[in-house]
């Protein structure tokens, strides 16, 4: 596609900019992808009319516009596979449903394996995916080369490519367009999108939430959904809830635009993943910084290491230029799985912990969270992703599926 063409896909009208009403049936805190998706599904699936999204900055200013947009559903655990596969199926119909060109492109996500351990784990994931109805196939080094000819499959590499698993239905979508599309769809269904409105406190009476204190005044609410991603610990504290999260920086970068050549390629051992966005820029991510931070910037040595790693796999990128780097604040849980469900406060619901990999979950996250809010109880797909699993020990460990975050 032409580098500027996608800007032209943006429609003539996106959203109203309403002032907040005194109260709503449901207020969603956080105008990122998951907040917008929740609001949209509350209106669309559950017919709830009086819904607002309150956003401290501009819609999408958090991780929504910062992520490397890799979409896949090849998670290891059964609960995860079910949830993420539900998301992927929604992606497959979303351009049409939202009536917006979000450029969902199923160009395939290839996860490279470099040693015996990785090959074994790769197969484990693939077999479990297949039984869970998630497409996944094994490519040996030769097939990797055929699928993506610029991958260096030379045996001389420090970590030669032994093969990889491919999810052909995986791919990317244009992150900004998804923000715009969801916001427009929610706005059309009557959801008030209130930007520049920071939640600074909660009205909680006798264990039940009744409203929010915001920088635009008090807003009454029958139900409240917290979808604050990296800032969730700060929000939760205001509501007196403890969440097992760490807020940490995760970086990404883009190059200047080059001729198309690439699907999505991930290497866990080398800690790097690369895709090519629609304009032609290479989009690359690596590991997160280990420390707690809200500064939205990451450490330089991670960039250096990731470039060295990327050039192992893609020597052809040597003279491509780094154009821009940035970071988001990701909300990481101890088991690398999200938390979607009820909280100790009545009518206060929590959707967080998607950490380094929640873009792909955008459709389903909103879908199940809207269900949870509307019914006051989780949907079967998110039942296991409860807050109390950290107390019982029933964790859903997905570290393997998200070693290199994406």
């Amino acid at each position: 596609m032409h580098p500027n063409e996608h800007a032209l896909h943006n429609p003539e009208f996106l959203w109203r900019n309403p002032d907040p009403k005194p109260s709503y049936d449901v207020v969603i805190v956080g105008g990122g992808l998951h907040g917008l998706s929740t609001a949209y599904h509350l209106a669309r699936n559950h017919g709830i009319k009086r819904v607002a999204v309150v956003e401290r900055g501009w819609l999408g200013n958090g991780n929504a516009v910062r992520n490397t947009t890799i979409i896949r559903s090849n998670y290891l655990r059964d609960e995860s596979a079910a949830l993420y596969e539900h998301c992927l199926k929604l992606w497959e119909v979303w351009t049409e449903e939202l009536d917006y060109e979000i450029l969902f492109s199923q160009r395939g996500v290839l996860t490279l394996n470099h040693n015996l351990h990785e090959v074994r784990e790769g197969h484990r994931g693939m077999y479990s995916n297949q039984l869970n109805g998630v497409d996944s196939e094994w490519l040996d080094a030769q097939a990797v080369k055929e699928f993506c000819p610029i991958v260096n499959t030379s045996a001389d590499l420090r970590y030669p490519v032994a093969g990889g698993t491919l999810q052909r239905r995986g791919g990317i979508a244009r992150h900004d367009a998804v923000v715009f599309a969801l916001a427009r769809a929610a706005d059309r269904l009557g959801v008030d999108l209130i930007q520049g409105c920071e939640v600074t406190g909660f009205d909680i009476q006798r264990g039940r939430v009744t409203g929010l204190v915001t920088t635009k005044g008090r807003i009454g609410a029958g139900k409240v959904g917290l979808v604050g991603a990296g800032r969730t610990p700060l929000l939760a504290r205001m509501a007196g809830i403890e969440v097992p999260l760490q807020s940490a920086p995760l970086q990404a970068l883009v190059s200047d635009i080059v001729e198309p050549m690439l699907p999505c390629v991930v290497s866990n051992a080398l800690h790097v993943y690369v895709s090519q966005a629609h304009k032609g820029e290479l989009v690359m991510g690596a590991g997160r910084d280990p420390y707690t931070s809200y500064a939205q910037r990451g450490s330089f040595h991670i960039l250096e290491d990731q470039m060295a790693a990327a050039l192992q796999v893609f020597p052809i990128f040597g003279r491509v230029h780094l154009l821009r780097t940035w970071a988001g604040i990701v909300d990481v849980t101890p088991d690398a799985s999200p938390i979607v469900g009820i909280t100790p406060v009545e009518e206060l619901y929590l959707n967080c912990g998607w950490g380094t990999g929640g873009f792909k979950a955008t459709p389903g996250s909103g879908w199940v969270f809207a269900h949870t809010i509307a019914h006051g109880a989780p949907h079967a797909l998110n039942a296991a992703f409860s807050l109390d699993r950290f107390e019982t020990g029933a964790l859903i460990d997905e570290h393997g599926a998200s070693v290199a975050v994406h």
Partner: protein
Amino acid sequence: MKRRPSGGLLDRDRALRFSWDGRTLSGFAGDTLASALLGNNVSTVGRSVAQGRPRGVMSAGLEEAHAFAQIGEGGATEPLVRSTGVELYEGLVARSLSIRGVLSPETDSGRFEKRYAHADVMVVGGGPTGIAAALAAGLQGARVVIADEGPELGGALLRDRYLIDGRPAAEWVRAAGLMLAGLPEVRVLPRTTAFAALDQNGIVLAERVSQHLPIADRSGLADRRLWRVRAKQVILATGALERPLVFPDNDRPGIMLASAARAYLHRFALTPERIVVFATNDDAYRTVFDLHDAGVVIAAVLDARDEATGGLPRKARQAGFEIETGAVVTGTIGDQDGVLQAVRVARLAGGGERLVPCDLLAVSGGWDPNLNLHQQRRGATRWDDRLATFLPGAAVPMQTIVGAANGRYGLNDCLVGGREAGLAAAAALGFAGTVVPAPSAGDEAEGEHASVWHITAPDGDESRSFIDLHRDVTVAGVTRALGAGVRHVEHVKRYTLIGTGVEQGRSAKVNAGRAVAGGIGLDFAQVGVSSGRPPAEPVPFALLAARSRGALFEPVRTTPIHPAHVALGAVFEDAGQWKRARYYPRPGEGMSEAVVRECLAVRNGVALMDASTLGKIDVQGPDSAKFLDRLYTNRIGTLKPGRARYGLMCRLDGVVFDDGVVMRLEPNRFFVTTTTGNAGPVMEWMEQHLQTEWPDLRVWLTSVTEQWATVPLVGPRAREVLAPLVVGMDLSKEAFPFMAVKDGVVAGLPARVARVSFSGELAFEVSVAWDQGLALWDALLDAGSAYAITPYGTEALDVLRTEKGYIIVGQDTDATTTPADAGLEWMIAQDKDFLGKRSLERPAMQRTDRKGLVGILPDDPGVVVPEGCHLVADPNEATPMTILGHITSSFVSPSIRRSFGLAMVTGGRARVGQRLYAPMMNGAPAVTIVDPVFYDPKGARRDG
């Protein structure tokens, strides 16, 4: 433009040939690619991204928004290089770009290297401000690094005719340069761009080491060098960038920044014939004077301000130039190629237009301090009405912004400010040395800058009034975004793509913000501009990777016995950074044949392997036993000196962390082994608990992984092989039973011998000093030759230990596996606490439907069901199927002569006897769940 016969900072004796889109052109040493193209009358250097409009060179430096080219050949082809920053060299190959860069698959022979540096004071920018700062700090004795992206120091002084101390500024620059060069603690880095500003004053530089040299002269030199500077104080003297103006057809070749017109004159001796100057501030009048003095016809001087009262406009009037205040360009006219021919001029107040023919339109919409590095540190900016731009706000610690970067546009201000900043930075670090007097320059009184940025299209069509030339975004585009309901500049950026190109909005951002403010009737100061991020200038990926490539990418760790493995033709596997011998194929053998042979040697004869990569920790001190009891799930304290025990460790969450053998050497001294992958983590884990949790324990740890090389001698004949090599060591079963440890001498080498066995066979694990490992190996091979001693690798070991039902942590377990899940409940001491124990008491850890370790026997003894396969009860269930577990280890056993394996299944051993299926794309082999010990369940052979 035309090249003047003399002048400029060119070396006229060195004409250089270069190629542009296949045409051979020539320029001079000192040219940039941009100036050389202009000198060859190439005014259109590319086409715009979206609309395909012809575009030229609009600047002479960092501001460039359009003139990007692809340069170099073969593997060194570099896309999207700013042609105003490319120094011409003999043989340069350059191409205009068709939108996207094209990469070469050939090998790049360019060397990109890295250097760490430390500075008391890091000065970014080598204009008058930076020079003054570096000089002041350097003379104080401070360690100074000064970097400038240009080929020489001077900054704006190179493009202007300033006087310093009454003499041409160039003389001062030269003298200052000499002084700097004479200071031993000062490092001057020309051709070096600071592109990232990190926490705690980390500044990252990209130096063009040899890129300006003819290819033939580059050999042995780096192409570029990455500098990682840590500075105690940073001085940003990065100058200001001139801002273009927005009006219909403002993107034609022939339209350039006013300061650029002077740079092309003074540096590159290039002049147009007729010029129109269109400005909102005083500085552009220098263009009027300088080009006039160079013989260029000044066709019009348009000043958007109602009045122009500053020193320079006054001088211009005195010199007889006709200045039209309140006048603006409302459009431009091009020739058939779209190149500028004339401009339309009108008064802001309204009234008729007139056409002014010209071949250059010099515009100046004001100046924006170059604050990208400050913004990278999340430094604040504030709007300044008088200068109509954003200035630095609150300071970043240990960082000072001076000169034009701080909105001080007078040269004298720059010189004084730079010097003061240099002195202050040095003084803050305790330096007190020579202070030289400040140079001085007479500054003109500067008039206000107009806030005019956009001239409305008379016909209302704003789709040719470009804000972002790189991304082809116009006023109409911004208006459309606002119409959609978008309000924030960051949304406008994402809706229109303003500022997302190679130049990252340097020349577009402020105008974009203004367009937004104007469009929705908000105060521009509130609307602001979109954010700045590293890098300040694009840098190649290869520069960031620097030398971390090829053999330098990551260590290949090998044991001292590695040469022997190589000589034996071993096939290696990567275990973390280690290379381990996986198997030793003999001629004609594949892996399976070799592994069978190696396994049988272990079971029936004698074999040896290299286990040197195991982690080893020496634990000493009176509280060692107590300490290890807290770490391991099983009791260690009851171990007798001279004995060893298999130990298991959990993480705090109760998940299996590592296993290994613990040997008690003396009452207060233990020798702990870990898995290869966990050598570091276990050592760290132990050290962490000693230091942070139990500082009262008197225990001291030393990592001795590479002090000891370890070779297990294994098999029923092992004792016979070892016997002649030891002196005074009784190897009998009685004197040296299973799980005993002895220090002694093996093959003349001081050695530690332990009766531990991971294969389930009689084994003596011999450890000697690392550097004697090869000697030990050779001696054992030699002694065993009569017994057909066989080296075996990790693959055979894997088969052997699986036959015994021994787990490998990380293969048969994952981040959810508890000791009980792994079938190791017998290793959990009930009568003591240990790390992770409390977590095992949580309800989910106690459930009976947890996955547990079992053995599997495929129905078809010839089928090895692949590791990783999942198990179900009903192979015909529709997806998603009910998954019961997965196979963790799976092989052919030469001992029981069939396929077998280990699996983790829900319910664990309660399923023994059940038949499950492993569905795959091509079938669903059935397996029977069995006890996980397949060989010598009583351990008689091991104990033998």
